[in-house]
């Protein structure tokens, strides 16, 4: 159903985002979905003149995601939100709330990943 999807990997996501930024695209948001026990599906939505362009990345839960907040400041809140809701960490996040953007520090469950308990803090 979704058009204009480009598959990216952890190595190429930063350069793709930079390319879109230089082409005048605006970051709309990022979306994360749990695919299975090990992997998450991260979508980056970009907009230019009412046309949406998406980047899709498969992300293992236990590895950090390369942050794009250094390239686009707008990604700051979304990445912190994903950290809250899916328990993934981000590499190079410019302002890291460390899972307390929405949640309290004493919350030990990751809400949107089948209530997985947090083991390491």
């Amino acid at each position, binding site marked *: *159903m*979704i058009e204009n999807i480009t598959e990216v990997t952890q190595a190429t996501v930063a350069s793709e985002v930079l390319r879109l*930024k230089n082409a*005048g695209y*605006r*970051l*709309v*948001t990022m*979306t*994360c*979905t*749990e695919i299975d026990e090990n992997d998450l599906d991260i*979508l980056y*939505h970009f907009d230019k*003149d*009412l046309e*949406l362009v*998406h980047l899709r990345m498969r992300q293992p839960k236990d590895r950090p995601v390369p942050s794009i907040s250094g390239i*686009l*400041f*707008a990604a*700051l*809140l*979304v990445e912190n939100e994903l950290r809250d*809701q899916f328990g993934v960490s981000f590499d190079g996040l410019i*302002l890291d709330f460390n899972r*307390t*953007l*929405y*949640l*309290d520090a004493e919350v030990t469950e990751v*809400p*949107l990943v089948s209530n997985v308990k947090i083991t390491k803090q």
Partner: protein
Amino acid sequence: MARTIIPFGPQHPVLPEPVHLKLVVEDEIVKEAVPALGYVHRGLEKLVQIRDYHQMIQIVERVCGICSCIHAKAYCQGIETLMGVEVPDRGRFLRVIWGELHRVHSHLLWLGLFADAFGFESVFQQFWKVREKIMDMMEATAGNRVIISVNVVGGTRYDLSPEQLRWILEGLVEVEQGVKALQKTMLEDYTVKARTVGVGVLTREQALELGAAGPTLRGSGVAQDMRQLGYSAYSDLDFEPVVETGGDSYSRSTVRFREVLQSIDLVRQAIARLPEGDTRVPVKGNPEGEVVVRVEQPRGELLYYIKANGTKFLDRCRIRTPTFANVPPLLAMVGGLELADVPVVVLSIDPCISCTER
């Protein structure tokens, strides 16, 4: 000069909802701002796991009260796309009528609150007096003042009778007169301009880079309005996005002021062209697939990502609300301001914190 951190919020006279900003100030000048959210986080996105896709309509309406109708519309559009449901023409037009009434009431609410933010209490009361007429319209036609709950998958639940349509048109004349009577005070008054012109400037480049949405984006000179996508019946109506080029608080309030008049015009157009027929079609089965829907909320672009798996429970329903996108631009605007201007600028993006945190 040593830096001081001044807390702004979570409880502040200009904020109807709790959000906290840590303002790093040098003398009276704000150097940077760090947000702290989470005071009204309810975890509504998780509810897709235990509520079926029909029940989710009432839940997404409660993401934000002020724009509940438009949240439900976006969600229903997404499910309809996935299931291949075609909404009848009358249903599409009715969605526009109620959606635009919602926009008028939201903008009038904001214009009042904005006047209150710079201390103009009487204008605040005047705007809310005008708004009351719109609230009556929604209560009489849809059964509730704010959470009108008219959208269902497949169309709208209620219909408007010819008498009701006539009554709405008569009421809109009154609303339009009331709003126009306040135009001179809100947009030309010397004291209002002194508090808003040139305060909290966001340039066009900054707005695009920081991902601003809605009136914040249009106030910076970007003519982008999601209604141009032509969802519901917007493709059959004539309108141009309202754009101002100043990028300051004054431009953003002008955009919203002009959008009130634009929305009144859109309601009139929709009523004039309202076709006969059913308002909804019956829906059977369950949705499957993934879809991205964007609609224009009073505060800006609203994005729904829906992933369904063929059962009555959705896999994921991701809601990106406009205020969520407008927080990074706000942080950029606040830098370099005088402390006394911060409340006005914070309010100028029309913050809806319940939306932001869901």
